[in-house]
């Protein structure tokens, strides 16, 4: 099953949330393989487990059971510092609710992964300014997140995710808070990145964005119910 160029390989991934009284089985056995350079849209109804899956892919959470390999390496076997490096360099994550730090400026938010990555000061400044320019917020660098609109926060989150130039970009509803035009800008940005050789996973309810992706994975009730498959592969529904 696992091919050499697969960057993400999941087998029978389950995730059970234990909230004390009730146990929620958010993922009930996910098999997913994504190759380098793919542009994948993950779709599905609310509460189906999309964010849960994305968190696992980004190494931000631990699956209850199953095997997850990132570029062939078992994530479960990684040490804490290795995981930190993966999160810092390999994966760029755009959260559904942004997760910007509210007390510091947009500039400082974007700079944060660069600080953890040990990037020298001058290089940090250069990169943050370029990114802010790219997401169209060059004039909002000193604003705090609370002083920005939802769409602007979204774009700061995108800039932060791109700061360390990650191999994989994971975006949870990146256009959810944007009007059609700025949503379109972000999509252009993703398209560019993807064309430059990046791997991209995007959760979206937006059919237009989903259509841009070459591959669509649909999740319902914790299971993959449709996968159009890698380009060239059969795009037949699983069920």
């Amino acid at each position: 099953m696992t091919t050499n160029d697969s960057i993400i390989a999941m087998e029978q991934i389950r995730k059970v949330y234990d909230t004390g009284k009730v146990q929620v089985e958010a993922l009930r056995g996910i098999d997913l393989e994504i190759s380098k350079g793919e542009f994948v849209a993950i779709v599905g109804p609310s509460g189906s487990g999309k964010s849960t899956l994305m968190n696992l892919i980004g190494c931000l959470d631990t699956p209850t059971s199953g095997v997850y390999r990132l570029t062939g390496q078992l994530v479960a076997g990684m040490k804490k510092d290795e995981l930190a490096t993966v999160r810092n360099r390999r994966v760029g994550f755009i959260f559904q609710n942004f997760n910007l730090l509210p007390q510091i400026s947009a500039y400082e938010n974007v700079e944060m992964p660069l600080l953890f990555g040990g990037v020298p000061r001058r290089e940090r400044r250069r990169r943050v300014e370029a990114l802010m320019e790219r997401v169209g917020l060059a004039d909002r660098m000193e604003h705090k997140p609370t002083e920005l609109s939802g769409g602007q926060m979204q774009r700061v989150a995108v800039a932060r995710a791109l700061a360390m130039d990650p191999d994989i970009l994971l975006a949870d509803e990146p256009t959810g808070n944007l009007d059609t035009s700025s949503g379109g800008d972000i999509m252009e940005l993703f398209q560019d990145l993807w064309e430059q050789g990046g791997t991209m996973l995007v959760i979206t309810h937006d059919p237009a964005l989903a259509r841009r992706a070459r591959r669509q994975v649909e999740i319902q009730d914790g299971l993959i119910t449709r996968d159009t498959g890698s380009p060239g592969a059969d795009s037949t529904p699983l069920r």
Partner: protein
Amino acid sequence: MTSIFNSLRQLWRDLRTQKLRTFLTTLGIVWGTVAVTLLLSFGQAMHRQMLKNVLGLGNAIVITFPRSTSKPFEGLGKGRPMRVTEEDIELVRKRATLVDAISSEYADNLQLKLGTKTMAVDVSGVSPEFGEMRNMIPQMGGRFLNPLDESQKRRVAFLGNELAEDLFGASNPVGQIFRLHGSPFTVIGVLEPKTQDSSYSGRDKDKVNIPGSTFRALTGQKYVNLFIFTSTDVQKTKQAADEVRSILAGKLRFDPTDKEAMMTWDTTEMFQFMDSFMTAFKAFLAIVGSLTLVVGGIGVSNIMSVVVEERTPEIGVKMALGARPRGILSQFLAETLILTAVGGGIGLLITFGICEAWPAGMEEFIGIPEVDLHVALLTSALLGLIGFVAGFFPARSAANLDPVVAMKMT
């Protein structure tokens, strides 16, 4: 290098953004340091001052006033006045085994003349031992009476510091000559100012001390007004007093159990009282100090743990962006160190300020408070440590969570 600067940058950013925590933690440490340090400074000052006040009278001396018998003895009636001569004192000095030092004191109010000034002053004729027993410390350039002064009946005088100032003003009194009861006397020393809480015949600062032999020759007085002695062992003062009384009883023929004949004032009782008082006082200080520390510690640790818990989502975000657990913890350690240093420093400054500004008029009761640097440093370090421990464990558990879990904590 880069990583150190990066951590410093993060640290500064966090301190700046966590203003409330920074402020509260610093305040807690400042307050604790000030409270404990001030408490101990003032306690120590009071202790020193009380010791000084008591020592002003003398080093655990027993003062004895010859009075009249209150019991008949060997056919002699009661109410016979006791007259003690220098010979009797000499006898006690030779015989008594429990007496360390003894000095007679002859006292009178005599006329003093200096130039055109004439005044009446209290004069005491005493032995050389008197100096040490009564803590009559001479100022620089002078001395107390010595055995030669006594044996040669020299006309020399040791002046109380205020009297010396009245007489000679700013000029050096040592070597100057004045007339006492008509005879010329040379000043050999001036009393170093001391605090004296109690006395039996006026304050030392206003008195003239001359050799006992000179006093007797000058005034013709034969009998001592009183004598003072110290015992070889402070614990045995009572026995020493009994011994002295029985020696004198044999010589002067009175009932050795007749305490009225030789009235004694045992200042060691004051010492013993002082001792137990100070022990209680110190225990009180220790308890209040520890309680202050405990309360301060609870405050600091509460703030720390609450704040770190509040920051769990933030730690989660940082972890998601690639922060290492160790990095988060060492930054936390550095933050605590800085807050402790700043808080302790401010606390120390405030304490110094209060002690500096302490009105000199209060000196007689409380003394001069001095800041104990060790106590201050220890206090702030301890509070910092408490804060660190209180914050460390929540910080560590936050850093060990999966980032998503930490981010969702509120």
